[in-house]
């Protein structure tokens, strides 16, 4: 495969295949540092606080949240959508970028996919705990029963059940299938012992056979082909949660693609935030380079701008529609009691990513880190704006009200961070953070200097 010399190398430094193995294996050996322990402890504490908050919710009732008769969803569903959105980067990177033959995906797809899975786990929590009667949550599954009561296939929330669970399943499959060869590598690095046995078990008996590789590639491609529309479908269906209603600000046809775009946007931002830290923390600077940064930032500009255009489209069509409710909903967003949320959203999502048009900024780790956090915040507020400001003032002014979260809702959100980071800390410790085999496959063409092992 020929690669134009004009292209920048993806992997810096002098690399041989074995160097790649060693570099990526390094963080998994030795004793973890203090920072790792501190981070894990913090994450576990947050997780425990979240679990306590969930306990309070279930025991006392959803009344412990700041919702009311007018605003049925608040932080809970905001967080759900936010986490699901974040959970779009991994599969987007590994599936869609695979289809588009973007080689830079190889350094980040593994950890991005892991983040996807963890984020979807966090996300999946919210539709469960936002139920008034969690113990009866199994009603949502169409299981055979004597009363012949099934579920309502018209309900987008039910679609969500199928979409999220399918997405989680397929993402886990995809991720794990990609991991098998690398776990094999780790297995083979380990000295015989219990650890080797465990990795041996987890590696599913990977041998590296050419036949396996061929099937593996074929499977990966088709799986990517399936995962690509699946990624679209997940956030599309999440957007249906809102867009199928008649509520102004919710019911608008642009939601499906716009949500997907927003999801990729926020997902990339989260991946960037974490990868910028991780590459430093576990010395992967050679593998996650400015080239990666630039490519990802380009996707951030693209998706961010799509989101921005969608905002403006919504705003304009609301006026254009001539429907008073639509018009009011958007005026209220921008200038109503929650104006600050709207402008945070606008600033963080539409304006800050535009800085990436400047080459210096999109190649700067520091700047990217800051902007990625802005985007994360902005995208959280986007969901908040959509959910809360649309609901709090809908059709009948008599029912208008205001929403403020309680500590319980905040606690659950903090708890999901705890869950996410607990899993992430464990992941970077026990699994190869970068897809070793995939990096090796592009090493020759894309490394700054490839060292061929002498005979």
């Amino acid at each position, binding site marked *: 495969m020929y690669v*134009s010399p004009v292209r920048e190398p993806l992997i810096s430094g002098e690399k041989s295949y074995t160097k790649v193995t060693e570099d990526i294996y390094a963080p998994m050996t030795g004793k973890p540092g203090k920072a790792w322990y501190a981070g894990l402890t913090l994450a576990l504490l947050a997780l425990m606080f979240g679990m306590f908050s969930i306990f309070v919710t279930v025991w006392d009732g959803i009344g412990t949240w700041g919702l009311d008769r007018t605003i049925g969803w608040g932080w809970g569903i905001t967080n759900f959508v936010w986490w699901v959105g974040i959970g779009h980067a991994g599969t987007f990177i590994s599936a869609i970028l695979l289809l588009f033959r973007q080689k830079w995906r190889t350094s980040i797809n593994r950890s991005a996919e892991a983040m996807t899975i963890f984020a979807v786990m966090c996300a999946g929590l919210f539709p469960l705990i936002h139920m008034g009667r969690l113990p009866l949550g199994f009603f949502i599954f169409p299981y055979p029963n004597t009363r012949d009561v099934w579920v309502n296939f018209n309900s987008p929330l039910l679609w969500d059940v199928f979409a999220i669970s399918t997405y989680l399943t397929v993402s886990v499959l995809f991720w794990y299938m990609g991991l098998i060869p690398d776990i094999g590598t780790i297995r083979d690095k380990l000295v015989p012992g219990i650890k080797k046995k465990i990795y041996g078990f987890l590696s599913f008996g990977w041998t590296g056979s050419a036949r396996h590789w061929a099937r593996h590639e074929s499977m990966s491609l088709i799986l990517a082909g399936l995962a690509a529309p699946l990624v679209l479908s997940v956030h599309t269906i999440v957007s249906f949660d809102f867009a199928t209603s008649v509520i102004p600000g919710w019911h608008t046809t642009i939601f499906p693609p716009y949500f997907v775009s927003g999801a990729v946007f926020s997902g990339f931002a989260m991946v960037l935030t974490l990868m910028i830290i991780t590459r430093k923390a576990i010395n992967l600077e050679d593998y996650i380079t400015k080239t990666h940064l630039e490519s990802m930032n380009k996707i951030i500009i693209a998706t961010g701008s799509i989101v921005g255009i969608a905002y403006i489209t919504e705003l304009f069509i609301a006026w254009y529609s001539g429907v008073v409710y639509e018009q009011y909903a958007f005026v209220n967003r921008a200038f109503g009691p929650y104006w600050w949320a709207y402008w945070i959203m606008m600033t963080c999502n539409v304006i800050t990513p535009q800085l990436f048009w400047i080459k210096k900024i999109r190649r700067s780790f520091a700047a990217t880190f800051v902007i990625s956090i802005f985007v994360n915040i902005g995208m959280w507020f986007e969901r908040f704006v959509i959910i809360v400001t649309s609901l709090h003032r809908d059709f009948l002014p008599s029912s208008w009200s205001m929403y403020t979260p309680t500590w319980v809702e905040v606690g659950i959100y903090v708890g999901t961070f705890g869950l996410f980071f607990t899993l992430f800390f464990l992941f970077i410790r026990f699994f190869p953070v970068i897809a070793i085999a995939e990096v090796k496959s592009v090493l020759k063409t894309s490394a700054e200097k490839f060292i061929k092992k002498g005979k």
Partner: protein
Amino acid sequence: MYKSFEFTQKIKTFLIALMVIGAVLTVVGVVMNLDHGHRIWANVLLNGFYFTAIAMGAAFFVVVHILGEGGWQTSIQRIPEAISQYVPIGGVTMLLVLVGMHDIYHWTHPDPDDTILLGKVPFLNPVFFSIRTIVYIAVWTFLVFKIRKMSLASDSSTDIKLFTKTRNWAGVFIVLFAITSSTSAWDWIMSIDSHWFSTLFGWYMFVSSFVAAVAMIIILLFVLRKMGYMEHVNEEHMHDLGKYLFGFSIFWAYLWVSQYLLIWYSNIPEETIYFVQRQEDFGMIFWANVIINFLAPFLILMARGTKRKMNWLLIAAVIVFFGHWIDMYVAIWPGTLGHADFGILEIGMTTLVLGVFLFSFFRQFAKAPVVPENHPYFKESFDYDNIR
């Protein structure tokens, strides 16, 4: 090495004949429909918009690969480039629409008690509409010329700065087009059903025309190969083009379903009126649109093999090309004529415009080497493969 295209007299004659037939049929059709101004102008709008949109879609194809740093497309890049040069000619057709505005757009003469339409007057009024139309055409023409010019410049220069500059202009293109593609679709098409609105409409129309552009690229590639050009194009390239046609047809269907499902679900009259009218008076065509444009490419191109064979690709592309013509028809006819009409006028005018379009393409294609040999990624285009 790469055989330059020659716009031979034979081709010219054929195209002129096509145009003449089209023109004759058009004249006959117009005469037959002199008292149906709506129909004449609807035809002008349809063909004017469709081919202009295809040209812009082709330009978008070029630009998005520049920005995405694609390498494979350099082997066929000159085809979409040449297609995009039709924009100013298509622009003239769109300017014609301004003449027939009154027969197409209800908002040009709203009822005095129609508060909703009166509320839209600041946006939907003939003057502002004309200004916007002219701006779209001017901006688009400028952009496609710019991109083309830089591509041609690369034939005589290997300066890497040119490459960077092209990328920058591609950025400008994408920003301007991102805005104007939506607004132009609202203006030219959505405002026909002047009470109706859909936020997705702009993107839907864009994807529809992009799919048509990909189909057009494939068709022209086939034609050129039949004529003995573009022999360097291999199965991998066809595979990629096939993937585009396949993927974006699905994406188009996704948008179609998104729009339809949401409106169907909420069932609010101000929105459903659009589909009710189409389902009731255009039932067959309405559903045919979905089936042709989704199922045909989906089934034909799902297998790996078909994507790699020019003949299969061509079949899918031709179906999609006419399919999206129908898509435009379903978008325009109900709001202008209110009923399905298909006859000499439609055939004639489409033939005429298609003739002009092809003439423009071949003329432009002949102007430059068939591949940008100095493109930095050009070599990559011949050393890659699709996973089996």
